[in-house]
């Protein structure tokens, strides 16, 4: 069983915090891109595998003409064995989502929509460079529901100077959202946001305020039945993202498109180039993980998830690491049998802890 990721690197405009491979492109370029992407799928080495999840991410998959999405989906279906219960997600931007597109997505088998809501504060949405407002976001969620989508996720950003993320979550849950991803705003180098902050033209919350924000949100979501199953992901029972969990638990996945990543479930990671030229030239970056590197991944990913990791999965003996013992003693890590988890109180500082264990 594998997961499939399809990258759609196009957007109507670039948001100020975005450092992902995404571009504003014309129709011809888009055509060329998806033609190549379909050939990439056809030529893949793992055809006919059983597929448990498919995820169209971006960029903004909803901005491109639906025919491209149909074509890619059709190609996938032709070459892989999609399991009947497969989770099939498409990321949508409220402003580029409409009834026709939703109908088409539904018809093609998509059963999960992930909306890039980010905030329900209009000033903040404008600040981030998003093209939708609160009203439109809620309207599109409603529309998706009426088109038969039950599994709807929304992304929220933590750390914005204004707005109330708890209130936003409440409104989203009331409007039928079953899954929330809440990410702390990360200042990526080279982004307009980085420059604005440096020049003091913009302001965001301090680290402490952001963490307070996060903790309030966690508390509210848990109270409302959305369990935290990863540092930044919360879901009602039965609505956890299968696809994302594949990344975190070390299952195999295939990535198609610009900058997409694949993993064989063992020791090989392959990355597509994140510039078009190299991508079209068919270049791939292949990384053979050492035992130590794979151990690092297991620890790093496991400690971000509610399920933790199994020490038997590791090649090294983590029990002999004095830091590990120190963390166990102080309650930062929790160990039940062979399973090790991070005490949720320390999710905010997970890096510091993981660093000391790898």
């Amino acid at each position: 069983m594998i997961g499939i990721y399809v990258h759609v690197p196009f957007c109507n405009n670039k948001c100020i915090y975005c450092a992902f491979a995404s571009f504003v492109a014309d129709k011809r370029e888009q055509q060329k891109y998806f033609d190549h992407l379909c050939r990439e799928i056809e030529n893949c080495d793992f055809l006919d595998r059983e597929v448990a999840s498919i995820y169209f991410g971006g960029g903004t998959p909803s901005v491109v003409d639906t025919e491209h999405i149909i074509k890619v989906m059709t190609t996938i279906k032709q070459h892989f064995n999609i399991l009947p219960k497969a989770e099939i997600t498409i990321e949508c931007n409220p402003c580029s989502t409409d009834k026709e597109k939703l109908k088409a997505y539904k018809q093609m088998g998509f059963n999960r929509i992930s909306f890039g809501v980010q905030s329900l504060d209009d000033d903040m949405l404008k600040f981030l460079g998003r093209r939708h407002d609160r009203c439109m976001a809620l309207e599109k969620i409603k529309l998706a529901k009426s088109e038969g989508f039950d599994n709807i996720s929304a992304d929220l950003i933590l750390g914005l100077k204004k707005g109330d993320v708890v209130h936003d979550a409440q409104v989203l849950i009331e409007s039928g959202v079953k899954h929330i991803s809440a990410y702390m705003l990360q200042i990526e180098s080279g982004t307009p946001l980085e420059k604005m902050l440096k020049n003091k033209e913009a302001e965001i919350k301090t680290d402490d305020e952001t963490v307070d924000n996060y903790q309030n949100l966690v508390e509210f979501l848990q109270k409302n039945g959305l369990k935290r199953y990863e540092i930044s992901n919360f879901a009602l029972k039965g609505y956890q993202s299968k696809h994302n969990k594949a990344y975190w638990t070390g299952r195999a996945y295939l990535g198609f498109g610009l900058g997409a990543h694949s993993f064989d479930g063992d020791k090989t990671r392959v990355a597509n180039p994140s510039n078009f030229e190299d991508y079209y030239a068919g270049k791939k970056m292949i990384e053979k993980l050492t035992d130590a590197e794979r151990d690092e991944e297991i620890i790093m990913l496991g400690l971000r998830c509610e399920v933790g990791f199994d020490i038997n999965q590791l090649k090294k003996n983590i029990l002999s690491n004095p830091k590990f013992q120190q963390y166990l003693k102080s309650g930062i890590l929790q160990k039940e049998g062979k399973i090790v988890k991070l005490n949720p109180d320390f999710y905010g500082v997970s890096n510091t802890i993981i660093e000391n264990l790898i």
Partner: protein
Amino acid sequence: MNKNIRNFCIIAHIDHGKSTLADRLMEQTNSVAKRDMQAQLLDSMELEREKGITIKLTPTRMNYNLNGTDYVLNLIDTPGHVDFTYEVSRSLAACEGAILIVDASQGVEAQTLANAYLALDANLEILPVINKIDLPSARIDDAKEEIERVIGLPADDAPCISAKEGTNIDKVLEKIVTCFPPPKGDENAPLKCLIFDSFYDNFKGAVCLIRVFDGTVKAGDQILFMQTGRKYDVTEVGIFNPKMQPKDELSAGEVGYIAASIKNVSDVHVGDTITHVNRQTKQALPGYKVVQPVVFCGVFAVDGSRYNELKEALLKLKLNDASLQFSPEVSQALGFGFRCGFLGLLHLEIITERIEREFNIDIITTAPSVSYKVLKTNGETLEISNPTSLPSPVEIDKIFEPMVAASIFTPPSYVGPIMQLCQDKRGTYKNMTYLDANRVRLEYLLPLGEIIYDFFDRLKSVTKGYASFDYELAGFEPSKLVKLDILLNGEKCDALSLIVHEDSAFVRGRAIAEKLKKIIPRQLFEVPIQAAIGNKIIARETISALRKDVLAKCYGGDVTRKRKLLEKQKEGKKRMRQIGSVEIPSEAFLSILKLDDEQ
């Protein structure tokens, strides 16, 4: 005995143009080809040139013809810093004359006077030279007047030169011959040589820089170092031209070098007298002393596993620097390292910089300390140069700290701030002399421990750099000193302990705690920082717990990027030291010395 030899040195306050004049003299006597000229030839070490100071001495032999007579001029360089006063006095002892340079725009400064006194003590003929006459701010007459009044030397005939532009250098050369007496001495008497410096040569071993006073020395001679009692066979003698040039022999009046397969420079003591084993001179030259380090600090590799490399580096540096002392030290906080002794702060700075630059080892140095004498209640006497070895207060009867006699030259408008500073530094006022309307000489007795703290920086800032400063050691005095400990998360951090005066302990403790709060990054737990004397907490700050250190999502399954980010972050923390449960950056250990920066 060659009456046409002149042995001389150049003395000056820092930046008054000593090395530039030396370069010009060599240029005019064709002692060095133009193409080999490199600004300030004598300061050969990269660091020396950068800091504008001379650390290792390099004598040079020049040939000069005046009115048809050939002369040999031996220029013996002197180190230009207070840390090396004894070395200066020994190189002066090798000369008959000294050129005293005074910057025409600056006039007489603290080191001008200190060096002039050293030269007078050594009975040298002094030739004043006014330099930098090309500067618009040059006050030639004022400078001459200051020399006459402050030092008491006639300066009417002093050559006025611009070493930079090469103006009137010939006058200086002429004066060297006419002013300075030729060496006295008897080449047939038993051998008597003064060692005024040494350096390490990979092939020749430790090479002695010498001045022959009596007798003749040549390869094959059996020689005796009179103070240390060591005996060697001479393998080579020679002169500096300015590179080493072997000669058949060196005789009375000459300056040069002796190589004798001496294993290391520690066996060669500056100030020692060399004579022949079989025909010894009756009396050794006066003034010999063993130079003791006065400033101490711990030196540790940032990466603890590089202890052995650090040891190698120190051994190599010591090859060429007998005054550097070190012994292994174990710190709970910093692991294995070395307690090093230096002649002064500059010496400390030079050595630590060379370890980092030439040996590429990142090091942590702990706060410099002086050496205290401790009289214990049981009558025992200890010398303590490491705060951690100070006995507990109940075992101490008295502590004595090293003092210095300091002399500060300043324009009168800064007298007030300087007196305030000296008072803050527990100084005792000794004297004040008006040299002229623009210059005052202040004399204070100050604890050395206060000088190595932040005295230079503060003097510079209260006088906008217009004051100059010089000092000499002046014995020990009893003082009310206490050990100030720093506790991180309740655990004493030995590498941060300091010995301070009782009266300033509270202020220092609070300032250190505040500074550490700024420097130590937040940890998983709240970290209290406490300053304590014995069991008494005198200051407390708290570093609140780290709240946020988390990566964003791994987009599209890009796990590698995330792992690399974490690895990079982990790498960045290698400069951190773990003290108990607290990680502290290596800068923290020295930063506690620079508390005034941010106040």
